[in-house]
């Protein structure tokens, strides 16, 4: 299996603060890759660099063999790198269905005149976008709330809607930023099942930020651990879990050490 996403010596400085320092790792096609680390470790900043929302200070990101580190977010998204947000960013005033339709329209390059005057090709694309969006909304279990404004959904449903919206980009790689935040144990297990299921169904590669160590250990075949912006361990979950640097980052150092 080849690397679908390769991060090389990636750094990000906010003024004098190094949010991410010289991070390198590779994500292989089809795997579920976990990115863990304490609060403020730079995980979301790393995601922002992968998706073009933040410009790296140094280093490169290769996606499908192409350097995407200088590209605009929209261009990266259309290449097939989709994401969800830790602090949910839905189109609040729009319906559940319309939220999921937006990436479809972005992909088919919705034409202004075709849409207004109802050209045959525009009508066909509208129908396809509608059918695909409906299917995705059903898939995440929101089929009964197609016309509800996204902002009035309960918290858990909003997280699921974000995943449906990201899937509407027909991505090759899906980045999930703390998808299990605020969920209880049973919900986390459901979510783990769901992530495996969509990986298989859509042939996805998943990159996952998560605080919950048991969930990551159960779901991912490889993980990377960030602490204070630095990659302190990577590899198989069992090996990483036993790594002294990781234990130190999560639990601190014993007083007599």
């Amino acid at each position, binding site marked *: 299996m080849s690397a679908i996403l390769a991060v090389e010596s990636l750094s990000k400085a906010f003024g004098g603060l190094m949010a991410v320092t010289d991070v390198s790792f590779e994500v292989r096609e089809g795997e579920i890759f976990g990115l863990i680390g304490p609060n403020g470790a730079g995980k979301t900043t790393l995601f922002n660099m992968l*998706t073009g*929302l933040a410009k790296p200070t140094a280093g490169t990101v290769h996606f499908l063999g192409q350097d995407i580190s200088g590209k*605009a*977010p*929209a261009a990266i*998204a*259309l290449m097939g790198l*989709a*994401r969800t*947000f830790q602090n949910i*960013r*839905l*189109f*609040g*005033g*729009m319906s559940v269905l*319309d939220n999921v*339709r*937006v*990436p*479809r*329209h*972005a*992909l*088919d390059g*919705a*034409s*202004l005149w075709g*849409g*207004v*005057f*109802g050209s045959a090709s*525009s009508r066909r*694309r*509208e129908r396809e*976008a509608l059918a695909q969006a409906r299917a995705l909304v059903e898939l995440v279990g929101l089929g009964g709330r197609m016309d509800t*404004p996204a902002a009035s959904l309960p918290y858990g449903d909003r997280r699921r809607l974000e995943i449906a*919206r*990201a899937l*509407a*980009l027909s991505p090759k790689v899906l980045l999930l930023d703390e998808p299990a935040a605020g969920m209880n144990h049973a919900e986390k297990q459901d979510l783990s099942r769901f992530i495996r299921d969509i990986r298989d169904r859509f042939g996805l590669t998943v990159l996952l930020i998560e605080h919950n160590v048991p969930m990551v250990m159960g779901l991912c075949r490889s993980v990377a651990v960030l602490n204070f912006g630095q990659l302190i361990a990577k590899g198989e979950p069992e090996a990483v879990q036993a790594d002294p640097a990781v234990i130190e980052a999560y639990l601190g150092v014993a007083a007599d050490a």
Partner: protein
Amino acid sequence: MEDLLARYGFLIVTILQQALLGLSLYFPLMTGQLSLASIGFYSLGGYVAAVMGTHPALAPLREALGFSMYPLEWLVALLASSILGVVLGYPALRLRGIYLALATIAFVQILGVLALNMPITGGAIGIFDIPQPFESRLAYAWFFGPLLALTLFFLWRLERSGTGRLFFSIRENELAAGAMGVNVTARKVQAFVIGCALAGVVGAMSAPLLNTWNTRQGTFDAAVACLAYVLIGGARSKWGALLGAALLVSLPELLRPLKDSRMILDGLVLVLVCVYMPRGIAGLFDRRRA
């Protein structure tokens, strides 16, 4: 009835015209962008019609075309506004919020200064004796009425199309729209240019109505008036601009018996709407539907 129409004819036509200007602001607002450039394009469109209607070199063309000269003026105004809209839109729409509003106001001022100093626009005096197709002012409803109907139809279709949804996604969350593949700048420019083109055509239709065109047609005050229509009526609905224009244009007339104190009441209504209806008049209907 005829008496009433004669008396309020100008008011009715003005409401239609101002509602169209308000709608020209609604297009960029669909993408969440507050632009005050409309009045500049209105002024530009008016000058296009005024020059085409009065310039001696074009006399043979006017004679040959007759009434068709007016649609030709609209078309030229539409093209000129669209081109200038693209040229202005790309740099200006990199700015956000209050800075975009300021940049577009600056644009309106620059156009004003140009019009004051160019021979073709007649300088400070402006252009006089613009040919008028109708005797009565109410008849200009034949210009503005169909344009308003067409604009509303266009909007009704647009809001239900993929392009409309892309516009709204930018308004709802610009960062997420970009992350979902929406070409944010191109879509903002698209919405902006539609607004510019509409304002240009409204200007071209207004030049014959007013018979004279000068720099007073494109002032800061007029730009703020258009903004007020949208804010009072509701910035998130196409009906907002309509309702706002109808209310704000007719209010001073309805309150005329109060003489000078009507200005106080006029202002009071504005303040009350802003305080108690932050989503405008159209927002009241929105809530009931939700």
